[in-house]
């Protein structure tokens, strides 16, 4: 039962549709007592300040941090990826979850990054990561959809992919998966990725 964090913000419905298409069971989680041991997804499409405020108000911030340290799989998408870092420049500066060492900054000159870019993930390079499913299809390659104005800068992770423009596309560190793009809106590639990681 996949846990989708729902604090009244974020594109929860789109994530549900994404999981539905792969026949996965899920539930919305709005309070600490509802979380199960399965994957936790932190969705995107919101601002860091308000999202962190609501996570703290419900105690979900500490719960997610604690569960991540036990090895529970956490997937952050877009904003969900950005708040896994220590700090975000958004909303005048926001302290985030600090699960991934690094910070989230505005893209140079406050430009935005909208559209499709290439994606490539070779699961054979992550063969020691028990959180990546052992599937017959080892490589997911195609294009993915980005729509953001802040970028993640990480200090170190075991597997990071950057685009030509320096934007961190995704990062995988043991049980932590962060995607700057929207896999739920990345058509075939997003669906193949889902089946590799959940």
């Amino acid at each position: 039962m996949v846990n989708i964090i729902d604090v009244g913000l974020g594109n929860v419905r789109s994530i549900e549709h994404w999981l539905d298409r792969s026949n996965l069971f899920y539930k919305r989680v709005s309070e600490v007592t509802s979380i199960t041991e399965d994957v936790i997804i932190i969705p995107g499409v919101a601002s860091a300040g308000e999202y962190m405020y609501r996570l703290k108000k419900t105690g979900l911030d500490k719960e997610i941090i604690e569960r991540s340290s036990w090895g529970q799989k956490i997937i952050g998408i877009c904003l969900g990826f950005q708040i896994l870092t220590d700090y975000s420049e958004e909303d005048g500066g926001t302290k985030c979850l600090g699960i991934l060492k690094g910070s989230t900054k505005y893209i140079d000159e406050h430009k935005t990054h909208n559209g499709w870019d290439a994606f490539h993930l070779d699961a054979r390079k992550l063969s020691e990561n028990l959180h990546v499913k052992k599937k017959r299809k080892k490589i997911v390659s195609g294009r993915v959809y980005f729509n953001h104005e802040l970028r993640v800068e990480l200090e170190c992770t075991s597997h990071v992919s950057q685009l030509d423009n320096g934007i961190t596309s995704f990062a995988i560190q043991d049980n932590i998966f962060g995607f700057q793009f929207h896999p739920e809106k990345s058509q075939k590639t997003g669906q193949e990725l889902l089946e590799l990681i959940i």
Partner: protein
Amino acid sequence: MSFRIGTTLLIDSNGNGIQSYGFNKKRILGDLQKVLKFLDAYEVDEIHAIVPFKGKGDSGSSKIFSHLSEISISTPLSIGGGITERNIGKITKDPFFERCIFNSAIFDNPELLQKTKSIMGHQSMVASIPFIIDDNLKIYYSKTNIFQAIKDELWKDLESNFNEVLLLDANAEGGKNGFNFQVFKHIKFPIDRILISGGLTKGDINKAKKMGLAGVSIDNFSLHSEYSIEALR
């Protein structure tokens, strides 16, 4: 960042996908869910789903947006037409879309634009600019249902409030007679943040790509498979 080839999908008050010709005549394309599923299967780069809103009447947009949220698609979605202060809270509480498209608020409601931007981010803001060229450039204002001349200041407001603009050649809409590129003589907005729509030929799409535009939004030709999205990329 690649050039985007999207599709404009108009929706009537009964929740049907419709096609518009010359900003005037309408033809029903079919049930919204089926139309969206086709576009999703064709893997267009994005879908601009707009409830045409002319005048001050209620377009029933909230009900249509609610219906849209139930449809599972894996293609990026922008919605517009009838986003107001009354429904913005509900719409953005659980967004099933990535971007919001505005027309009348460009002229008369900066507060709504700011509110949406604060929730969804600058990257989500798209200005819909249907235009005609009648000696000078005239831009459509949906609340009055009139194409009107604009002041230079509008371009500054557009640049600060919107990430992208969607220029629709109203006279060419629904046809294949070509987009009126003369409009660029009048535009004061960064070219790499402009999408064009209306009357697009394959040559127009190539021209837009060479000009460095952000992308195009094709109307019924992608739905009818007359234009292969894959071949246009």
